[in-house]
Protein backbone atom coordinates (compact mmCIF):
# COMPACT_ATOMS: atom_id res chain seq x y z
CA UNK A 1 0.00 0.00 0.00
CA UNK A 2 2.73 2.44 1.03
CA UNK A 3 4.82 1.48 -1.98
CA UNK A 4 1.93 2.05 -4.36
CA UNK A 5 1.30 5.45 -2.77
CA UNK A 6 5.00 6.33 -3.11
CA UNK A 7 5.05 5.46 -6.80
CA UNK A 8 1.82 7.39 -7.41
CA UNK A 9 3.04 10.54 -5.68
CA UNK A 10 6.52 10.34 -7.21
CA UNK A 11 5.05 9.92 -10.69
CA UNK A 12 2.64 12.82 -10.14
CA UNK A 13 5.41 15.06 -8.78
CA UNK A 14 7.68 14.43 -11.74
CA UNK A 15 4.93 14.78 -14.37
CA UNK A 16 3.64 18.03 -12.87
CA UNK A 17 7.21 19.29 -12.45
CA UNK A 18 7.84 18.60 -16.13
CA UNK A 19 4.65 20.46 -17.03
CA UNK A 20 5.87 23.47 -15.03
CA UNK A 21 9.08 23.60 -17.01
CA UNK A 22 8.01 22.50 -20.49
CA UNK A 23 4.29 22.41 -21.12
CA UNK A 24 3.74 21.32 -24.73
CA UNK A 25 0.28 22.92 -24.91
CA UNK A 26 0.79 26.34 -23.39
CA UNK A 27 3.68 28.66 -22.60
CA UNK A 28 1.55 30.83 -20.38
CA UNK A 29 3.11 31.48 -16.92
CA UNK A 30 -0.29 30.99 -15.30
CA UNK A 31 -0.41 27.33 -16.36
CA UNK A 32 3.14 26.88 -15.06
CA UNK A 33 2.08 28.36 -11.71
CA UNK A 34 -0.94 26.07 -11.50
CA UNK A 35 1.18 23.00 -12.22
CA UNK A 36 3.68 24.20 -9.61
CA UNK A 37 0.84 24.14 -7.08
CA UNK A 38 0.05 20.54 -8.07
CA UNK A 39 3.76 19.60 -7.81
CA UNK A 40 3.92 21.05 -4.32
CA UNK A 41 0.77 19.22 -3.22
CA UNK A 42 2.10 15.87 -4.44
CA UNK A 43 5.43 16.63 -2.73
CA UNK A 44 3.46 17.15 0.46
CA UNK A 45 2.08 13.64 -0.12
CA UNK A 46 5.65 12.32 -0.28
CA UNK A 47 6.41 14.18 2.99
CA UNK A 48 3.47 12.43 4.65
CA UNK A 49 4.84 9.08 3.44
CA UNK A 50 8.14 10.04 5.11
CA UNK A 51 6.20 10.73 8.34
CA UNK A 52 7.04 14.45 8.18
CA UNK A 53 3.48 15.48 8.97
CA UNK A 54 4.23 18.99 10.17
CA UNK A 55 6.35 19.77 7.14
CA UNK A 56 3.64 18.47 4.80
CA UNK A 57 1.15 20.87 6.38
CA UNK A 58 3.63 23.76 6.24
CA UNK A 59 4.44 22.91 2.63
CA UNK A 60 0.79 23.22 1.62
CA UNK A 61 0.11 26.30 3.77
CA UNK A 62 3.21 28.29 2.91
CA UNK A 63 4.04 27.16 -0.62
CA UNK A 64 0.72 26.22 -2.20
CA UNK A 65 -1.03 28.94 -0.21
CA UNK A 66 1.09 32.02 0.32
CA UNK A 67 3.91 31.78 -2.20
CA UNK A 68 1.76 30.73 -5.13
CA UNK A 69 -0.83 33.42 -4.44
CA UNK A 70 2.04 35.92 -4.58
CA UNK A 71 3.17 34.45 -7.90
CA UNK A 72 -0.33 34.63 -9.36
CA UNK A 73 -0.77 38.23 -8.20
CA UNK A 74 2.47 39.26 -9.88
CA UNK A 75 1.55 37.38 -13.08
CA UNK A 76 -1.78 39.18 -13.12
CA UNK A 77 -0.11 42.56 -12.52
CA UNK A 78 2.39 42.13 -15.33
CA UNK A 79 0.33 41.57 -18.42
CA UNK A 80 2.46 38.87 -20.03
CA UNK A 81 0.35 37.85 -22.98
CA UNK A 82 2.70 38.80 -25.75
CA UNK A 83 5.52 36.73 -24.25
CA UNK A 84 4.00 33.50 -25.46
CA UNK A 85 5.06 33.61 -29.07
CA UNK A 86 8.80 33.89 -28.44
CA UNK A 87 10.97 31.02 -29.52
CA UNK A 88 13.22 28.93 -27.32
CA UNK A 89 16.77 28.78 -28.59
CA UNK A 90 18.34 25.42 -29.37
CA UNK A 91 21.57 26.49 -27.65
CA UNK A 92 19.65 26.85 -24.39
CA UNK A 93 18.04 23.42 -24.77
CA UNK A 94 21.39 21.76 -25.52
CA UNK A 95 23.14 23.52 -22.62
CA UNK A 96 20.30 22.66 -20.24
CA UNK A 97 20.25 19.00 -21.26
CA UNK A 98 24.03 18.74 -20.90
CA UNK A 99 24.08 20.26 -17.41
CA UNK A 100 21.08 18.25 -16.20
CA UNK A 101 22.63 15.08 -17.65
CA UNK A 102 25.93 15.86 -15.91
CA UNK A 103 24.19 16.22 -12.54
CA UNK A 104 22.27 12.98 -13.14
CA UNK A 105 25.50 11.14 -13.99
CA UNK A 106 27.28 12.42 -10.88
CA UNK A 107 24.31 11.42 -8.73
CA UNK A 108 23.90 7.95 -10.23
CA UNK A 109 27.62 7.12 -9.99
CA UNK A 110 27.69 8.20 -6.34
CA UNK A 111 24.47 6.25 -5.62
CA UNK A 112 26.01 3.08 -7.07
CA UNK A 113 29.07 3.49 -4.80
CA UNK A 114 27.06 4.39 -1.68
CA UNK A 115 26.89 1.79 1.13
CA UNK A 116 23.11 1.67 1.22
CA UNK A 117 23.07 -1.50 3.31
CA UNK A 118 24.33 0.56 6.25
CA UNK A 119 21.17 2.72 6.28
CA UNK A 120 19.00 2.09 9.30
CA UNK A 121 15.36 1.28 9.12
CA UNK A 122 13.17 4.39 9.17
CA UNK A 123 12.78 5.71 12.68
CA UNK A 124 12.21 9.45 12.79
CA UNK A 125 8.69 10.71 13.34
CA UNK A 126 8.21 14.33 12.31
CA UNK A 127 5.34 15.38 14.51
CA UNK A 128 5.12 18.81 16.04
CA UNK A 129 6.49 17.84 19.46
CA UNK A 130 10.03 16.68 18.57
CA UNK A 131 10.34 19.43 15.97
CA UNK A 132 9.28 22.14 18.41
CA UNK A 133 11.64 20.78 21.05
CA UNK A 134 14.58 21.09 18.67
CA UNK A 135 13.44 24.45 17.35
CA UNK A 136 13.19 26.07 20.77
CA UNK A 137 16.27 24.54 22.40
CA UNK A 138 19.08 23.59 20.05
CA UNK A 139 18.09 25.83 17.13
CA UNK A 140 16.80 28.84 19.06
CA UNK A 141 19.37 31.28 17.65
CA UNK A 142 18.71 30.41 13.97
CA UNK A 143 14.99 30.64 14.71
CA UNK A 144 15.35 34.19 16.01
CA UNK A 145 17.64 35.15 13.13
CA UNK A 146 15.01 33.87 10.68
CA UNK A 147 12.45 36.17 12.28
CA UNK A 148 14.81 39.12 11.74
CA UNK A 149 15.29 37.95 8.14
CA UNK A 150 11.54 37.98 7.57
CA UNK A 151 11.34 41.51 8.97
CA UNK A 152 14.14 42.61 6.64
CA UNK A 153 12.31 40.99 3.72
CA UNK A 154 9.09 42.83 4.57
CA UNK A 155 10.86 46.20 4.74
CA UNK A 156 12.75 45.48 1.54
CA UNK A 157 9.60 44.53 -0.35
CA UNK A 158 7.81 47.67 0.82
CA UNK A 159 10.76 49.81 -0.27
CA UNK A 160 11.04 48.08 -3.64
CA UNK A 161 7.33 48.37 -4.36
CA UNK A 162 7.25 52.13 -3.90
CA UNK A 163 6.18 54.04 -6.94
CA UNK A 164 9.19 56.32 -7.28
CA UNK A 165 12.04 53.86 -6.87
CA UNK A 166 15.22 55.89 -6.59
Amino acid sequence: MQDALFYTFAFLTLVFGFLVVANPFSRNPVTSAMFLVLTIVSLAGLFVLLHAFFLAAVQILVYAGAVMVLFLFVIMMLDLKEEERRKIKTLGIVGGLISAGAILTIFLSSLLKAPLGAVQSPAVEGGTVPLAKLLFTQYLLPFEIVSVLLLVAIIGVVLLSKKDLK
Partner: protein
Amino acid sequence: MSVGLEHYLVVSVLLFCLGLLGVIVRRNLLVIYMSLELMLNAANLALVAFSRYTDRPDSPDGQVFVFFIITVAAAEVSVGLALIVALYRKRQTAHVEDLTTLKL
Protein backbone atom coordinates in the same frame (compact mmCIF):
# COMPACT_ATOMS: atom_id res chain seq x y z
CA MET B 1 11.64 -4.30 -3.63
CA SER B 2 10.24 -2.08 -0.95
CA VAL B 3 10.66 1.68 -1.10
CA GLY B 4 13.77 2.93 0.65
CA LEU B 5 15.99 5.96 0.93
CA GLU B 6 17.38 5.63 -2.59
CA HIS B 7 13.94 5.83 -4.20
CA TYR B 8 13.29 9.20 -2.60
CA LEU B 9 16.76 10.39 -3.61
CA VAL B 10 16.13 9.43 -7.24
CA VAL B 11 12.85 11.38 -7.26
CA SER B 12 14.64 14.32 -5.65
CA VAL B 13 17.48 14.42 -8.18
CA LEU B 14 15.08 14.10 -11.12
CA LEU B 15 13.04 17.02 -9.79
CA PHE B 16 16.24 19.02 -9.31
CA CYS B 17 17.28 18.33 -12.91
CA LEU B 18 13.85 19.44 -14.14
CA GLY B 19 14.25 22.71 -12.23
CA LEU B 20 17.77 23.23 -13.59
CA LEU B 21 16.52 22.59 -17.12
CA GLY B 22 13.78 25.16 -16.57
CA VAL B 23 16.21 27.78 -15.29
CA ILE B 24 18.47 27.35 -18.31
CA VAL B 25 15.90 26.83 -21.08
CA ARG B 26 12.99 29.11 -20.21
CA ARG B 27 13.31 32.83 -20.99
CA ASN B 28 10.53 34.23 -18.84
CA LEU B 29 11.72 35.60 -15.49
CA LEU B 30 8.64 34.33 -13.63
CA VAL B 31 8.95 30.80 -14.99
CA ILE B 32 12.67 30.84 -14.13
CA TYR B 33 11.65 31.77 -10.61
CA MET B 34 9.19 28.88 -10.44
CA SER B 35 11.92 26.51 -11.64
CA LEU B 36 14.12 27.78 -8.80
CA GLU B 37 11.32 26.87 -6.41
CA LEU B 38 11.27 23.37 -7.93
CA MET B 39 14.99 23.00 -7.20
CA LEU B 40 14.52 24.16 -3.60
CA ASN B 41 11.71 21.66 -3.16
CA ALA B 42 13.84 18.86 -4.57
CA ALA B 43 16.53 19.64 -1.98
CA ASN B 44 13.84 19.66 0.72
CA LEU B 45 12.67 16.20 -0.33
CA ALA B 46 16.23 14.84 -0.13
CA LEU B 47 16.70 16.38 3.33
CA VAL B 48 13.45 14.95 4.66
CA ALA B 49 14.29 11.52 3.26
CA PHE B 50 17.76 11.55 4.86
CA SER B 51 16.23 12.74 8.12
CA ARG B 52 13.72 9.89 8.11
CA TYR B 53 16.32 7.21 7.47
CA THR B 54 19.48 8.39 9.23
CA ASP B 55 18.63 10.84 12.04
CA ARG B 56 18.37 9.74 15.65
CA PRO B 57 14.74 8.82 16.37
CA ASP B 58 14.10 11.61 18.88
CA SER B 59 15.71 14.49 16.98
CA PRO B 60 14.62 15.23 13.41
CA ASP B 61 17.40 17.73 12.68
CA GLY B 62 16.94 17.45 8.94
CA GLN B 63 13.32 18.46 9.21
CA VAL B 64 14.25 21.56 11.22
CA PHE B 65 16.62 22.43 8.39
CA VAL B 66 13.80 22.01 5.85
CA PHE B 67 11.63 24.27 8.01
CA PHE B 68 14.29 26.99 7.82
CA ILE B 69 14.64 26.49 4.06
CA ILE B 70 10.89 26.97 3.58
CA THR B 71 10.96 30.18 5.63
CA VAL B 72 13.96 31.63 3.80
CA ALA B 73 12.45 30.61 0.44
CA ALA B 74 9.26 32.50 1.27
CA ALA B 75 11.28 35.64 2.08
CA GLU B 76 13.34 35.17 -1.06
CA VAL B 77 10.25 34.82 -3.26
CA SER B 78 8.69 38.00 -1.89
CA VAL B 79 11.85 40.06 -2.43
CA GLY B 80 12.48 38.55 -5.87
CA LEU B 81 8.93 39.17 -7.07
CA ALA B 82 9.11 42.76 -5.82
CA LEU B 83 12.33 43.16 -7.83
CA ILE B 84 10.63 41.73 -10.92
CA VAL B 85 7.71 44.14 -10.51
CA ALA B 86 10.08 47.10 -10.08
CA LEU B 87 12.01 45.98 -13.17
CA TYR B 88 8.80 45.62 -15.16
CA ARG B 89 7.80 49.16 -14.23
CA LYS B 90 11.07 50.53 -15.59
CA ARG B 91 11.56 48.33 -18.67
CA GLN B 92 8.10 46.90 -19.50
CA THR B 93 9.47 43.39 -19.86
CA ALA B 94 9.90 40.22 -17.85
CA HIS B 95 12.00 38.51 -20.47
CA VAL B 96 15.67 37.77 -19.84
CA GLU B 97 16.71 38.45 -23.44
CA ASP B 98 15.58 42.07 -23.11
CA LEU B 99 17.55 42.61 -19.90
CA THR B 100 21.10 42.75 -21.25
CA THR B 101 22.22 46.13 -19.95
CA LEU B 102 24.99 44.54 -17.87
CA LYS B 103 26.39 42.71 -20.89
CA LEU B 104 29.86 43.90 -21.94
